[in-house]
């Protein structure tokens, strides 16, 4: 579904992503891990076409990509349903189809179709709404930036369950996250990035017996 080869990004003579390569198969959940400034978000932005790559190759097996940015500020005067209808229309759906799609996604993400404006939403509800807008049009590939960040315990559990369900349904998921325990529950494979470079590949099955936290700490210590 997604093949990245030697992806490189240079901003003002500073290399922020250097020779990153990975492959994500259909129905897999893949994690981009690393501390702040590791190059995770830039990698995601290049995949989405929001930033131009300086070098490298990208092969994306679908045109239907859903993207959930970290805490987007939805218009506070709209309800969740109105937000979804708006993005559905921007995606080319007519009014009736947008309405249906919004209804389906509110149900899927566990948001109620109330008159509550997004300005009064909790962080957890906003994250679920952000995921719902990424799911408009039923994309095959989902790219999620910190989907569980800032959520309380219940919100996190619900979000993880939802992502696992989407994975089970065959969605390919790329997640950028700091929260290793969440990644371990959702993803099978991943990359540990530091200063734009790949320091280690992580594979749940190959690395059996070691927690992701252990692997992460070992890698970070080796890097320093």
């Amino acid at each position, binding site marked *: 579904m997604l093949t990245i080869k030697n992806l490189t990004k240079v*901003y003002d003579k500073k290399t922020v992503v250097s020779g990153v390569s990975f492959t994500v198969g259909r129905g897999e959940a893949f994690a981009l891990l690393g501390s702040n400034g590791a190059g995770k978000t830039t990698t995601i932005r290049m995949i*989405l*076409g*929001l*930033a*131009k790559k300086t070098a490298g190759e990208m092969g994306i097996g679908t045109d239907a*990509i859903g*993207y959930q*940015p*970290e*805490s*987007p*500020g*939805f*218009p506070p*005067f709209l309800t969740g349903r109105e937000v979804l209808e*708006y*993005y559905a*229309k*921007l*995606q080319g759906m007519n009014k009736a189809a947008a309405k249906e799609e919004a209804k389906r996604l509110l149900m899927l993400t566990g948001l109620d179709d109330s008159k509550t404006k997004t300005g009064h939403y909790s962080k957890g509800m906003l994250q679920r709404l952000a995921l719902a*807008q990424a799911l408009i049009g039923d994309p095959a590939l989902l790219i999620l930036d910190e989907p569980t960040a800032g959520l309380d315990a219940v919100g996190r559990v619900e979000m993880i369950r939802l992502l696992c369900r989407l994975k089970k349904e065959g969605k390919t998921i790329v997640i950028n996250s700091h929260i290793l325990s969440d990644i371990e529950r959702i993803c099978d494979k991943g990359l540990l990035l530091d200063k734009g470079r790949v320091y280690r590949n992580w594979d749940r099955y190959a690395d059996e017996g070691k927690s992701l936290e252990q692997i992460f700490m070992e890698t970070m210590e080796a890097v320093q």
Partner: protein
Amino acid sequence: MITLIQHGLQERARRRELFVFIALGLLLLLFLGSGNAALSVNGEPITGFTMLFPVIMHVVNATLCILALVLSVHTIPEEYRRKTSHLIWVRGISQPAYHFSLALANFLAVALAGLILYGAVGLYLVKNGEGARLGALLLSFGMLSINTGIITSLTSVLSIVWPPLVAGLLSFFVLLAGILHPVLEWVSYWFDGWTASVLRAVLRITPDLDAIRSMATGLIQGTAPDWHGLFTALLWLYGISLLFFVLRKKEA
């Protein structure tokens, strides 16, 4: 694009500034139109329809131009701050189309405010027994919209590349110079040397918003428009609008 404009209008209609400026404009028009205003130029009192009407049109023009600036200066930066811009681009909508739609929504919001103020101008005409001139109101409104179009476009394109404060100050400078074009022109004859050169340069690089205001007033008063001035203003509007397709947010 229509969805973006509709959404933009919906959002602008919730902005407090829109209503504050409409209320302020209406209050000023009420004050001037009631005949209670003691205005004078060089000691000569401004009274009667022919003298007061241009003043009223000055107020309408200034109110709408400042509203255009205030609405436009934060619109595009705010979308980037909220990170909603990425959700637009991943849906295949280009930066120019997105920025242009946001500016168009602002322009339409200002036009709505303009319609309300023009409604008040219409009442003033009727009150003064000038109801026969009502037919020209719509044409005049269209003419004055060139000014709000110029300020909306300019503020919006500047806010793509510069922070709101810089974009706002630059736009305000253009607005002020545009409204005060005849005054600056007059003052420029008083000076020699570099001061005169600077003033003439300012006149050359800023659109003559007052000429459009004057034409919009003239249309209601039965004066034929100055076609050259109108063409120049439209050229300004076209030139600034083209910048939407040239200026891009760098790796936003």
